[in-house]
């Protein structure tokens, strides 16, 4: 299989005995009524997962999925049909179903001629997919991680380590005659532990990965860092006191706390919501939505990152999109449909979970550019506040703009010093407001370690986030201890 995958577009032609003429016929069927656009999305995915619990790798799983989705767009209407059987007959049936949304009167002029190859980036030139590394080697590493985490402290009582990898090949053939294809490997190593001290039990979790080779986890002994970091977080949480409740100064550490940007502004800047004017950011391009210290980008082109892709799931090459520049809203994230209706260019953000899903505007790697303060300066400037360095997930209501994200490791700042650890708490704010309250931005930009997954309308896609240390002058902290 490895050789076939070198040329992802040949992969589908060979595997399913398809031809470019078959694509043209299917697209012709799809466009028999009056439509603006049609595309075929082919996907083959092979995945594996291994889990270590109680010091043995006792759970292993493999899966293979494949399918084709046919989409027809007419004005703002989308017809979609898919099948996990990839045959010319099934494709024709899907095309007939998908075109039902198009106007029966009239037809789409011109025949489709398929053939133009869309060049993508080369962001993850992988020789050997992690799915092809022998299972024994992965089992050994998970066992090492278990020993490493337990060796940190006798209070580490439970270690769960897991490795998940997938190898996905995608191909998009559209009614402009273009063919774009990509092979998208992705893997992730995760460690979660429970530390116990008397009746006090606390968790710590860490992990990383990306579109990388197996060697990534061995480089600089990353696996060892993951194990130690998970153990460290759990041990810190054993000491944590109740989190404060109420509005206060919040300093967010670098890296994963960038989930703030993902929730507070990222979703609200997705093109579908803005075309429909259902986002709190609708109609605000050119306006100030953040302090001038803030420049936020979404960049699908960073080599090897979890959120990066050579082409999006509509075949558009990804790019670096500036969302907010020195506090001013510059643009939205677009897929083809919304870009066409808003009369702008697609931005390479049309993504879908699988062939069973309709693409929509999604983030890739979303982060804030570095400023010039040191972390020490930022913390020293705070009399009383919260310093939050690790987070679980978040969520946003894009219409009201209210968003949350939940800290899993946080400390009090008292008189300019980081003091006691506090228990996890949810932070809540208003998307269009929160970045206007950013008064200091650090020089320490970091991207997350590569574990993020974003959900929207029931579809999950891998994403990245990043941020330097920042200071937010007021944010509501949802602890239990009244301030």
């Amino acid at each position, binding site marked *: 299989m490895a050789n076939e995958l070198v040329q992802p577009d040949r992969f589908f032609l060979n595997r399913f005995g398809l031809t470019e003429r078959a694509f043209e016929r299917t697209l012709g069927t799809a466009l028999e009524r009056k439509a603006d656009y049609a595309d075929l999305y082919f996907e083959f995915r092979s995945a594996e997962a291994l889990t270590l619990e109680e010091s043995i790798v006792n759970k292993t799983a493999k899966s293979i999925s494949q399918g084709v989705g046919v989409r027809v767009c007419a004005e703002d209407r989308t017809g979609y049909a898919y099948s996990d059987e990839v045959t010319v007959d099934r494709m024709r049936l899907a095309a007939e179903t998908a075109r039902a949304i198009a106007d029966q009167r009239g037809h789409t002029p011109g025949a489709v001629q398929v053939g133009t190859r869309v060049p993508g980036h080369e962001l993850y030139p992988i020789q050997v997919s992690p799915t092809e590394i022998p299972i024994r080697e992965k089992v050994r590493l998970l066992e090492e991680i278990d020993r490493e985490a337990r060796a940190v402290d006798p209070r580490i009582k439970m270690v769960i380590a897991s490795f998940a990898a997938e190898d996905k090949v995608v191909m998009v053939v559209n009614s402009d005659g273009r063919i774009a294809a990509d092979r998208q490997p992705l893997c992730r190593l995760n460690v979660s532990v429970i530390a116990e001290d008397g009746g006090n039990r606390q968790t710590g979790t860490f992990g990383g990965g990306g579109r990388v080779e197996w060697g990534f986890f061995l480089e600089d002994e990353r696996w060892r860092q993951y194990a130690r970091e998970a153990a460290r977080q759990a041990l810190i949480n054993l000491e944590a006191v109740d989190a404060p409740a109420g509005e206060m100064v919040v300093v967010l550490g670098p890296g994963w706390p960038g989930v703030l940007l993902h929730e507070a502004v990222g979703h609200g800047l997705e093109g579908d919501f803005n075309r429909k004017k259902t986002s709190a950011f609708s109609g605000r391009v050119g306006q100030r939505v953040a302090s001038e210290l803030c420049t936020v980008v979404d960049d699908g082109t960073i080599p090897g990152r979890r959120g990066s892709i050579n082409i999006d799931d509509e075949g558009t090459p990804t790019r670096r999109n500036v969302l907010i520049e020195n506090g001013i809203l510059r643009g939205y994230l677009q897929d083809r449909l919304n870009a066409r209706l808003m009369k702008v260019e697609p931005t390479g953000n049309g993504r879908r979970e699988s062939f069973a899903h309709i693409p929509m505007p999604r983030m890739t790697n979303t982060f804030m550019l570095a400023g010039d303060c040191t972390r020490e300066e930022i913390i020293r400037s705070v009399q009383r506040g919260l310093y939050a360095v690790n987070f679980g997930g978040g969520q946003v209501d894009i219409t009201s703009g209210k968003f949350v994200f939940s800290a899993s490791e946080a400390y009090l700042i008292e008189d300019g010093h980081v003091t006691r650890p506090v228990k996890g708490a949810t932070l809540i704010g208003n998307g269009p407001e929160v970045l206007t309250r950013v008064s200091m931005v650090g020089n320490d930009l970091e991207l997350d370690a590569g574990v993020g997954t974003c959900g929207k309308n029931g579809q999950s896609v891998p994403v990245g986030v990043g941020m330097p240390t920042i200071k937010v002058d007021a944010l*509501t902290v949802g602890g239990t201890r009244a301030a």
Partner: protein
Amino acid sequence: MDEISLEMGEWVLDHARRAGASAAEVIMLSAESLSAGVRLGEVEKLKSSRERRLGVRIFTGQSAATASTAELERGSLERFIADAVELARLTAPDPYAGLPDPELHPRSLPDLDLADHNHRIIPAEQALAMAREAESVALKFDSRIKNSEGSGFDSGVYELIFMNSQGFSGSYTGTSFSLSAVVIAEADGAMQRDYWYSANRHFDKLETPEAIGRRAAERTLRRLGGRKIKTTAAPVVFDPEMAAGLIRTLAGAASGTALYKRASFLLDKLGHQVTSANVTIIDDGTIPGLLGSRPFDGEGLPTRRKALVEKGRLANYLLDCYSARKLGLAPTGNASRGLGESPGVAPHNLYLEPGPYSPEQIIGSVRHGLYVTELIGFGVNSVTGDYSRGASGLWIENGELSYPVEEITIAGNLKDMYMAIEMVGSDLVWRSSVASPTLKISDMTIAGS
């Protein structure tokens, strides 16, 4: 075309045995659905799907591996089975792994009314018409309803076949229908969005488009003018949808998989009081017609009724065979199963038994407090019970809903929160597979400005 069938299952089990499996299970799923969406009166989306997948769990002695595929041709399946057997051999032997005690498999399967015999996939025209009507009712309801995220109608049919190498085989066919509407209201330059939906196995039992539209509009309108309140401690009344989330979390903490990993705040609490005495929580997979009903669980065991919490006391854990063996208990028929995954644990139809109070009486009992209608975020720690989530709802003043509140959090520890359930409502309605009446928790921290 390779349709799923008992013969295909026999063939897979036979090939697994020949490839060296000492025991095996096979699950086959075939599903079709049509999803229709309208927005502002126009068709927005029509999505049609059709899939068939097959999953196996292969044992080689005490080692087990799972695998799933959509390639159902015999040649592909043969390679797939050989790979799965090889994967099992590479997996560590685990003394607790294995198929259920064969005695526990049911001899006959109950008819649980899982499928609508008069309706299957609802044709696009009818589906779109129903969605259009629901949205239209909402848009016309009030001039402040200005926009829409759309309204959707989905219907689906599925068939599941499960077989194992010790002779159990069972199958069932089910249907599902759902109608939803999401609309947006605007006032004073601020927008609010809310939704309503209905889901059922029987088409005729869905709420009407008119009811969905009206309820979506009412829920959205009542959020307009939401304000933040000062940080305080007060009683919190959970509406039925939010209360269902609380009991779902309790079921998660009472699941065998969380317990043997010591990742639960209910560890060592079996037989102890974990909620106030006015609370009884039942899980029952055998209630005819409900969304969570099924004749057997993910390992082929009966999905019988059991009390999770009985008058405040933790009466049962929810267990699959593996976690049951780990904990030295008997399985409860709660194995949940993705096609390509080891069994997990999940409730079937989970509900909190209704109490004596109407929602009005519960709200009427609160002098100052919060009626919570939406919670967002993932701030629930099932190991410690620490709970902190973003909330919006209505502020209660002197026993009456007085104004909308937003951008606040509610926080506490679940162990304390369950013990502080002071009133249980009489308004139990099945809208999904988890249901609760209105609940009042006597005291939580509410963070705002």
